[in-house]
Structures are given as structure tokens and as C-alpha cells.
């Protein structure tokens, strides 16, 4: 499932593509919303690992503007609820992710990203 939490962790790994290879840009996506169990401990624990700008931009690309542009210093319940929804409940089911640097296209089918490369692209 390409949830935004996964998207926030994926970079292009084509041989020689080492700069500006993150975040991947969504293209022609179909989205589904599915409820997930809320767990505040998990969210607090995961927060330091998030690339904030990439998450906010990805959410906006998918039409969700609930997150503030700057990562807040005060972590309250409303913020965690919004974060929970953006990270864990928005599923990209079909479409693709494109590398901003080398333009490699990684397809997404049935919610699963295909990150395999051709022989000559492997590092």
C-alpha cells in the first residue's frame, strides 16, 4: 500500500541518481481512504523520522491541506489526528511515482509500488 508514510521513505535508486531523488512525485493517482487504528505513541515515536516538507507537499498533491507548512512544536491531539489521517489513511491505489531528478517512473498497481529497475539501471 502506498500510504504517505511509505512514500515519505522511498527514494529513487537508479544507478548514479543520488541528488534530488526524493521525494518522488505522484502522477495520475487514484486514491482510497481507509480508516486505521489511532495510536498516539506510534505517531509521537515516528514524528522525528518524517521529512516534513515532503509529507506536506505530498498531502497537498493529493488534495489534503490539513497539515501546517511548518512542523509544529506543540504536539496536541488535533495535530496528531490530522497527522494520523495523512500518514496512515490515504492510500494511493493506482498511478505512479516519478523521480524528480532522473524522471524514472515507478508504477503503482493495486496499492503496491513497483520499485524494480532494469539491469542497466542497477547501482
Amino acid at each position, binding site marked *: *500500500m502506498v*500510504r504517505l*508514510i*511509505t512514500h*515519505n*521513505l*522511498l*527514494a*529513487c*535508486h537508479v544507478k548514479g541518481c543520488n541528488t534530488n*531523488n*526524493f521525494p518522488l512525485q505522484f502522477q495520475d493517482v487514484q486514491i482510497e481512504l481507509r480508516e*486505521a*487504528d489511532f*495510536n498516539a*505513541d*506510534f505517531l509521537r*515515536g*515516528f514524528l522525528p*523520522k518524517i*521529512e516534513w516538507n515532503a509529507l506536506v507537499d505530498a498531502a497537498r498533491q493529493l488534495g489534503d491541506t490539513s497539515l501546517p507548512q511548518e512542523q509544529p512544536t506543540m504536539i496536541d491531539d488535533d495535530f496528531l489526528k490530522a497527522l494520523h489521517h495523512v500518514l*496512515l489513511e490515504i492510500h494511493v491505489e493506482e498511478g505512479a511515482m516519478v523521480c524528480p531528478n532522473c524522471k524514472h517512473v515507478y508504477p503503482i498497481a*493495486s*496499492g*503496491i*509500488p*513497483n*520499485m*524494480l529497475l532494469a*539491469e542497466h539501471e542497477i*547501482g
Partner: protein
Amino acid sequence: MIPTPDLSHLSHKDYEHVYEPAEDTFILLDALEEDADCLKQVQPRICLEIGSGSGCVSCFVGAILGHTSLYLCTDINPHAARCTVATGVRNQIRLDAIIAPFAHPLLDRLKGSVDLLLFNPPYVPTVEEEAANAQHHADIAGAWAGGEDGMQVTNELLGLVEHLLSPTGQFYLVAVKQNDVPSIQRRMFDEHGLRSEVVLERRAGVEHLFVIKFFRGCPPTKQVIEFCH
């Protein structure tokens, strides 16, 4: 007792393309179950299984840890990735499957972040070419064909473990006798400073199976064997 994940949604047709859980899978489940309390204490936020196949192992970890962790699962076999997701749905554990070799597209972002890393690799000794072909075609042969000493595929992951593990991270690896377990342990210590212990060992048919656990610094359990001297 942690129940074995429900796999009744998978059929013989699926197992033509995807590895059906077998003794090597079950020894890993048993090792994880023995360490369940210790695992809960570490409070993993990011679990990553390489070569998740049916998804059985990650689901089992999900049953131990609950919704307090992210479960990332890679496999080079697209059928396996689909089965992994289906097994997650069936057992109400969200497994985020990615079709990818090892952790390649995750390496930048997961540096020093993986709390629990799992790999039940293709460990059967074969000729080199057979393993290379199996990796290329990413089909059922990729589930077992391991090349020289059965280590061709595992070796590639071993080089990434130190990069991926968090400070309290642990890595569970399944191996067989022919893989030369003491040599794997020695190399991981000498080259990457990772300590390890054999947490389980058993004979199943012709196979002599091992589960090795690797970790940094302080031992997460008492009886730790050091391989530095």
C-alpha cells in the same frame, strides 16, 4: 501462545508463484515468539522484512507488537507482494508491501532507523548462475536459490544491516549449516561491529536450520556469545 497467522485465503495457485511457509518460516516464528517480551520492550517503530513472501512472518510480528509499529515488507516477486498485502488484510495487520530488491529504495531514508529487521533468505546452495537467474526472474526459484554456499543473496543484505539498524535495532536471519553460521557471525563482528547469537537451531528433514540475531552494543538478552576473541 501467539497464533500462527491465518493463511487460508492463499491457494495452491498462489503457492506456484510464492513461497509457502515451511520449516524455515516456522523456526523464525518460534524464535520471535521466544523473544516476544524483549521485542515489546524495545518498542519498535519500524519493522522491515526483506523477502516477505506470503507475509506470514510480518503478520506474526504484528500480532506480537500490535499497531505500535510500521511494517514494511519488500520482495522482488510481485506475486509475493500481493500475497503479503492480502495476508495483512486477512489478519488485520497493515503490511506496507513494496516490490523491490532488499531495502534499496529505502536505504537513504531508513539509515539508522530500523528497529526490527527480518530476512528468511534464499539459502540453498546452487550454482551461481542459477541464483543470478532466479534473482532476475523474481519468481518462485528466487525463494530458495542461494548460489555459492547459499550465501550469494544473503551476503548482499549483510552489507546493509549496519546501515539500517537503529541503536537498539535487531536483525533476525535464517540460515542453514552449509551457509557456515560461525563465519557469518565472525564477519558481521569484524566488518560491521555487530554482535550476534544463535537464538534457535533445529534439524528439519535434511536441513539443519539456524536463527541468528544480530545487534549493536549491549546485548538484549543474557547469554551472548562474543566472537571477537
